[in-house]
């Protein structure tokens, strides 16, 4: 009888001990049941509305391009404001794309003295940011720096790593503020391309810049003149944005803004307080 009592007592003790030790888990009924966490898609940043061109890593080859008759206007410290603006652009890019796309730049070590005088690049029409200068300067740079037979060819500088999206950035000693993408097309005319892309024809140009997928031009004045000290870096990034196929958010003719971000009204604000809109970011594959 006593043996049974001892066994019973031992069992009660063991169970009570176990209950004490693990009771809170058993009594987890007082706490809510575990819920599942939803699965979200991963971001894959690409050109605006063009998922075939990834923008995981963008590298900008930046040149200070000076027409041969404007060499006297080259400031002593031409490089610092360019690099400063580019650094700020890199930081802005990282924030806006949540780290899903990286931006890097290399500045050509010397000002590139262009073959022609300024009137060749500017022509009489510098409206809409002087795209003619952008194209002619970009073509010249590609020929002289990136082709092996170019007089300024530099194998190290002209190389892009595998997977990098190549961009030319031109800081121009003259009038300029435009940018765009470079895309192969079997079409023969700008009009045909414009119709295919449903864009105004004045936005389509025929170019020969095989070393880049995008290019932009910005007058050096925007980076150094006091008038633009508030939004110089903003303007640089605004033009750079076009190399990712991001369109303007304002009317090119009237200047009226229809977006508040850096592509519209925000282009006038300091880079510290502007942004890329969610519509653009989602159009570039960023999952919020």
């Amino acid at each position, binding site marked *: 009888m006593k043996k049974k009592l001892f066994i019973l007592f031992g069992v009660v*003790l063991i169970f009570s001990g176990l209950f004490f030790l693990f009771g809170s888990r058993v009594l987890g009924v*007082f706490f809510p049941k575990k819920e599942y966490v939803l699965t979200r898609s991963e971001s894959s940043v690409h050109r605006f509305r063009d998922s075939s061109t990834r923008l995981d890593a963008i590298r900008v080859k930046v040149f200070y391009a000076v027409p041969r008759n404007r060499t006297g206007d080259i400031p002593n410290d031409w490089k610092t404001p360019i690099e400063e603006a580019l650094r700020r652009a890199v930081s802005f890019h990282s924030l806006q794309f949540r780290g899903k796309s990286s931006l890097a730049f290399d500045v050509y070590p010397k000002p590139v003295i262009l073959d022609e005088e300024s009137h060749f690049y500017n022509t009489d029409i510098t409206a809409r940011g002087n795209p003619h200068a952008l194209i002619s300067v970009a073509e010249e740079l590609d020929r002289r720096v990136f082709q092996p037979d170019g007089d300024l060819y530099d194998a190290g500088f002209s190389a892009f790593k595998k997977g990098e999206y190549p961009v030319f950035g031109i800081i121009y000693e003259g009038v300029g503020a435009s940018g765009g993408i470079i895309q192969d097309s079997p079409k023969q005319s700008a009009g045909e391309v414009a119709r295919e892309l449903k864009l105004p024809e004045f936005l389509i140009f025929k170019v020969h810049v095989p070393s880049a997928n995008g290019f932009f031009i910005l007058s050096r004045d925007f980076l150094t003149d006091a008038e633009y000290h508030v939004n110089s870096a903003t303007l640089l990034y605004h033009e750079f944005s076009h190399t990712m196929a991001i369109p303007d958010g304002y009317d090119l003719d009237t200047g009226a803004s229809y977006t508040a971000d850096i592509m519209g009204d925000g282009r006038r604000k300091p880079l510290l307080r502007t942004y890329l809109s969610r519509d653009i970011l989602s159009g570039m594959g960023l999952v919020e």
Partner: protein
Amino acid sequence: MNEETIQPKNHFFRVFARSPLRNRLLAMVLSVSVLPLIIFGVLALYSINASHSYDIASIEESVLLQKKDEILRVVDDIKGVFTIDLNLRTRSFIMPESADCVSYSLQNGKEDLDGILFGILQYHASIEEVSLIDRDTGREIALMSRTQTGDLSILLPDCPDEKRGYRLSNFKDLSGLEKFKKARTGTVYLSDVYFTESGPMMTIAAPVFGKAYDGGRAVIVAVISGEINLSLLGRIISETHLGNTGFVYLVGHDGRLLASSEKRDGYYNLLASPVVYDVLRGNDRIGSGGMGYYDGTFKKEVLASGVSIPNLGWGVVAEWPRDDANSIVNIIQNQNILFSLVLVFVVIVMSLFLADRIIAPIRKLQEGTKRVAKGDFGVNLNLKTGDEIEDLGAAFNEMTKGLKEYQQLKDEFVFIAAHELRAPVTAIKGYLSMIEEGDAGELSPKMKEYLTPVSQSNKRLVNLVNDLLEVARQEAGRMTIDVAKIEPASAIESTIEELKPLAMEKNIAITYDKSSARAVLADEARMKEVMVNLLSNAIKYTVGSGTVLIWHETSGETLITHIKDTGIGMSKESQEKLFEKFYRVPDERTKKITGTGLGLFIIKQIIEKMNGRVWVASEVDKGSTFSFSLPLAK
């Protein structure tokens, strides 16, 4: 029941089997104390867990509602600043001067507008930029910005001097922006949160009302717009903590993290969290019923609650890692367990101690009673328990005292009676002997026939008196033992010679191996007395013919003498009582063998007086071996 005969099968229980009463007491005390302790512990654990869950939910709810109020106060405060109701009659802040030139309509021109904007900027540090947009043209007619350098940017008039105005085309055209379109209709506009390097920001735009010229409803004169830095909300959130690792965060309407009480590097979207998901759909998750449990983005296994911020579509969420939230419960539980284990241990030890305290005097009584049963009346128990057991001990001592006195009286009586009887029975023996020898004349056959039983009865009486006298002497302490170095072989050989006729009568062969005999310390006469008794018993209790073997062996410092017979033997029960007074083995075959039952008791006393020991090993019908030991003489 003899305690030594209890042999539980399981060794574990043998430890406790020696005191059933103690075990019963122990079990009772443990049942009364430990079981309630266990029940209380279970109930305590139950209630702690039940109330703890509620407490966690309550704490989170309280924190969240407080943060929600603070955030709404800030937002409403800012919205209030942008609610401008001018107490003046005007339809617009600008008026056309020519096709492209305008001037400001207020008395002090643009200064007045700048003053309004400046006041707004100064009111709240979160307002980074404020501007006025003309209602009709959508042009930004005044702007003030809190830049990094603190400069305020202003426009300069640039119309020809004679027009004294500003070129309309130089004012930014914001007519296409959503903020203008919405505010122009009379609704306050709040944009999505956008992320800048200054922190998360949002745009607010509201109509500016002025008095109607006709005294009717207020008219919208312009749209006022501001850029608000939401870092202040971050500061509200950052001052919040739950326990050691719990935290609170603010999410935008799409799940983007706007602020967190813990520093977070990088960008996060928390829409995947179930509580965030529900809250952003307007379903508050607060209270015991709303609290959620899941693997959070920042920490595993969190208990989370959330509330939505109305009008903004934001959410404030609290996540408290479960381990941290339950740490206090775990501490209490562990303390509870430790305390309970210690208490159980103490109860068990105290119970054992208490039971032993109760049992100990009872054991003494038990031991004393056993000794009394064996004839030891000198027992005196000293029980100091202060209760009935002490009274029982005192009564026991009185009893043993009485028994001892009685024994002494009895011993004295036996001694006197035996002593007084000895002379007459010896005289009777003497005279009977002379009559049998013919000293009183020739006996007729009839006379011999009558005298024989008388002679035998007298012989038995003489033996009885002698044995009683011997026992009485021993018990009175009058038995004399003269221990000296002796050779046991000679005493044994003389005993054999003396009893040879008796053995030959029954055809019993006595063999003595004295090769191992050695000198011992003993009283030779007494030793012979012992040998006579043992050898005569060996002969008497052998039915028919048989053998008796005597030999020695040395064991340590003693010489053992064995006497082995081929007699009737005896049972185990008889062996245990063999050396008691008056005990005779109950056997039909030995009923006719005369004896007082005192012989073995006497020889046991004698051997023990000589610092020896006597014992027996026997088996029914197979004979017995009596052995005794005596100390070797050095």
